[in-house]
């Protein structure tokens, strides 16, 4: 074989090698990488789908739990309203006074302006007011229990029992009426004005 023929053969081999190199690096390798990525994506999507299918089996439970939470929230907002109107507060205290009629002699002395109160992650509206009455000890205990069962919620921050001789006591209670402050549900309400005319004046205004 002469050298011309050998060179031609060598070029032939070289061309084959170049084609193999180019095809592997620029065609096959990207295809394989794409295949691997896609396979991972599909696998992950399948896992996600399976999880969703499993969750779908509990969908009714989710709905039931949401309903229960909604009920709890309604109950909570009855106790800690987002909006409290002056006349509601007065009505509530009047009703309470009527409940206690004959047992105690009540005087509501003073209602403060609303303040903010932070409990854990929750922000509350709070108004202090004092509640005084004369009663025997049993009457005091009864009032104590009933005050804590009112809606909206009243809490007792402190109280003083003073003896008037015999069974009679003078009770001074510092109470707080509480409302929930929810930034997501700001009520569009007029400015706070406790001493104004008795109307729907919102006592718990957002800051």
């Amino acid at each position: 074989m002469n050298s011309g023929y050998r060179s031609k053969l060598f070029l032939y081999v070289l061309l084959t090698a170049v084609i193999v190199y180019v095809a592997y690096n620029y065609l096959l390798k990207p295809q394989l990488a794409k295949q691997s990525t896609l396979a991972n994506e599909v696998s992950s999507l399948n896992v996600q789908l399976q999880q969703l299918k499993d969750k779908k089996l509990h969908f009714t439970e989710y709905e039931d739990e949401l309903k229960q939470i909604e009920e709890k929230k309604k109950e909570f907002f009855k106790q800690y309203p987002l909006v409290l109107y002056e006349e509601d507060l007065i009505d509530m205290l009047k009703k309470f006074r009527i409940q206690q009629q004959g047992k105690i002699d009540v005087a509501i002395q003073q209602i403060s302006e609303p303040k903010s109160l932070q409990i854990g992650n929750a922000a509350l509206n709070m108004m202090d007011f004092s509640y005084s009455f004369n009663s025997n000890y049993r009457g005091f205990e009864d009032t104590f229990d009933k005050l804590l069962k009112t809606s909206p919620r009243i809490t007792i921050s402190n109280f003083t029992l003073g003896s008037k001789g015999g069974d009679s006591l003078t009770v001074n209670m510092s109470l707080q009426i509480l409302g929930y402050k929810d930034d997501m549900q700001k009520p569009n309400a007029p400015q706070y004005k406790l001493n104004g005319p008795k109307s729907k004046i919102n006592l718990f205004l957002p800051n």
Partner: protein
Amino acid sequence: MKDLNLIPQRLIIERRRKQINKLSLSVFVGVIAVLCVAILIPTIIINRLEAEKTLVSGEIEKLKYVTDKENELIAARNDIAIKDSVTTDLKSKEDHIREMLKDIHSMMPKKIVVSSISIDSDSISFSGKAENEMVIADLISNIRASGKYSDFFIPDITPVKDGSGIAISLKIKYIGQGV
């Protein structure tokens, strides 16, 4: 024996070249064919995977309402947990006050006449008249024995002018670790 091959050398070489050329072409075509198959197979797999991806994504999209409901539930759980913590915290404060009221009854010796009691979320103050020093000692001993109170502060112990006993004022702090 003598070689009687009469074919000319030129023809032999020509034939060998043709054979080599054929072989080279076959190798080349074979390599190209293998490459084509090697590229074609992943392409088919990729097409199949893409079709599967579209299908699975579609199914996931159809079940999106489950995810939405789950997210809604998670948010609602967090929200109610905050509200529950408010209720629990306030209930705990009320329980303290109730407990303190009950304690003051059980700890108070009978020979003390209480004239006033004041209770807030973490302390009790009271004033009254004790028959004698022993009764005051009994009171302090009862409070200590309960293990729930600290920071005794006694701003006043004075004998009553008419000699009928000893006036006492006392303030204690609730620490809430009962025995």
